């Protein structure tokens, strides 16, 4: 038994060493050669936000009538950016690092984990910017900010699960790459980021709003915005869907997604080196 514990320790020690080094390398390489370097982590979502703000808030007049809508838009953009980046890059990571897999034996889930962790670092920087801007944009910080941490963990778990699942499939079917792009786009529009959820309800699609809120990504993003920015104005699944048990669906499905990702990945990962 003790031997088993030691072996497990040894195994994860190796994984951790590789993980740290890969995250570090990815981070270094990410802004390699660009003039502003890591500043792009901050600038990119801000510029994206500026575009969206101009188009949707100023021009199309999307708003839920609360003063927190702009900062909520920025926050949503950053969170969505993380989800789409980590799943997209995570999906391709196994194929992209095929050179490593074919030459050396190491726990290959580390590749996916380190890629998603790279996006996580960007998200952390972005959220810093969001919090800073929030102080000027009517954000109401309460003790609930602490609840953001488990939500971020949940978001990471969903992304990792999806990345592991797609990454395994992508090794065998490159079609997944194209399909996922479309799915991501669809999911983006199905998530109340550029528009407030109240807009959907106001137009008589109350049921649709409820279904949308039950998507694990939407639920997480709304939870984070709710707890971080404004517990008063931003709705969550709990305020939209009245049935307590139904509200648990997104939380449970997050765990299911992660489990499924790990399960599929473990099943096929031994063959990756040969297929690539």
């Amino acid at each position: 038994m003790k031997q088993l514990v030691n072996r497990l320790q040894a195994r994860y020690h190796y994984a951790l060493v590789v993980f740290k080094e890969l995250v570090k390398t990815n981070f270094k390489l990410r802004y390699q050669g660009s003039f502003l370097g890591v500043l792009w982590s901050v600038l990119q979502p801000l510029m994206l936000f500026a575009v969206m703000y101009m188009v949707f808030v100023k021009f199309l007049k999307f708003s839920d009538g609360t003063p927190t809508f702009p900062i909520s838009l920025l926050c949503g953009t950053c969170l969505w950016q993380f989800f789409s980046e980590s799943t997209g890059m995570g999906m391709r990571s196994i194929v992209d690092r095929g050179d490593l897999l074919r030459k050396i034996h190491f726990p290959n889930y580390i590749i996916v984990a380190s890629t998603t962790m790279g996006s996580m670092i960007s998200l952390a920087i972005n959220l810093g910017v969001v919090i800073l801007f929030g102080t000027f944009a009517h954000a109401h910080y309460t003790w609930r900010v602490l609840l953001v941490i488990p939500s971020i963990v949940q978001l990471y778990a969903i992304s990792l699960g999806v990345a592991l699942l797609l990454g395994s499939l992508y090794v065998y079917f490159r079609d997944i790459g194209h399909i996922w792009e479309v799915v991501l786009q669809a999911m983006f529009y199905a998530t109340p980021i550029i528009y407030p959820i109240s807009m959907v309800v106001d137009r008589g699609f109350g049921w649709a709003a409820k279904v949308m809120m039950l998507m694990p990504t939407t639920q997480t993003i709304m939870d984070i915005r709710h707890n971080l920015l404004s517990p008063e104005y931003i709705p969550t699944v709990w305020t939209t869907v009245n049935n307590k048990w139904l509200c648990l669906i997104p939380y449970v499905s997050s765990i299911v997604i992660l489990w499924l990702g790990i399960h599929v990945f473990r099943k096929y990962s031994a063959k990756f080196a040969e297929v690539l």
Partner: protein
Amino acid sequence: MSGNNTIDTAATNDTRPVVLKVEHVAKYFRLPTEQATGLKMAFLNWTRGIKGYTEQHVLRDINFEVHQGDFFGIVGRNGSGKSTLLKIISQIYKPEQGKVTVKGKLVPFIELGVGFNPELTGRENVYLNGALLGFTREEIDAMYNDIVDFAELGDFMDQKLKNYSSGMQVRLAFSVAIKAQGDILVLDEVLAVGDEAFQRKCDNFFSQIKHDPSKTVILVTHSMDAVKKYCDKAILIKDGEIVVSGNKNDVADQYTLENLKSAKKSQEEQLSEGQYPAGLSERVPKLEVRADSSPLVKTSDPFRFHVEYEFNEKVAFYLILTVLDMQRGGIVYDTAAELQQTKHGHQTATFELPLNAICNGNYRITAQLRILPDPDNVKSNQQLAYTDENRSLDFALRIPGNNGYALLNKSAMRVAQVN
């Protein structure tokens, strides 16, 4: 059940611990018959009930043991499965059958500089490469200076790798490989890197590690010199099976023989009726040089061989035999117009070549058939036929103690000092 059917008999009375045990390992690959890396093809194949791939058996029932401190060689021709075996040992591939047991830290070098990134500096690459091999930052810190010294790249470590010359990159990679403090080192054809000075360094390193009882090295190579020099044991793999196991000299010699044979076999052309292979013609439909016994020569007795020819014209003719040195290059010996033949028709002439003057090496005997229309004038000769690669005789000289850098050995020629 394990050790019983291991071919390696020398290992049975070895008391050193077994660090690598390969038992009944078999591996096959699924080769897609049509491009199946798409949803469409996968779906179509599924609806048609086609498997969409063929199975290729790369390894069948491989068994061997490596003991601590061994310098173990794996040789085999291209495509024999040795790289696959190496990947299975390194746990990159999973065998379909059998199992591999490894004790200790195995450091694989299927390719040098795995994970090297041109955008990172030399230093960062060393740490990254080290991490992939399973070393923590502290462990690499400890061996970092050794690595840099061995690679002789002290001034370049903070330069990006893309600014290195290819030789420098390989040197760095190789230094990481051999300075990495693993217990079992797996090396795939990496001996031929760097300039001469670096080669000599590697040579010293291998000789040194050979005498270190705690380090085990598994080496895959085509160089029989390396096998004979460093290895204590070796296996020869052919078509996914172990053909020879144990003594390194047997393995090296057998490997040379395999290469001689296959060079012949692979070239057997398919010729239709009325066509003649290169060098032969209607006038001389047959001309071939054959060894009397094995083309692998281990004694210095004269080497006996036959020349089979068919020539029916009533003209004076002769055979020219030429010995070529396939390793060092050049013509070793030529019979000129000495071998006049009298028998016409389909004949076999037997010759003997004395071997006491030349050192070990790979040689080829070619034959030519020439006619001499005017017997008094040698210059009037005309070449009618010659043996091409397939009909010449390749033989390997492997007399113990007869190695030499030069062609002639000491009994044939010796420089005398006169002052």
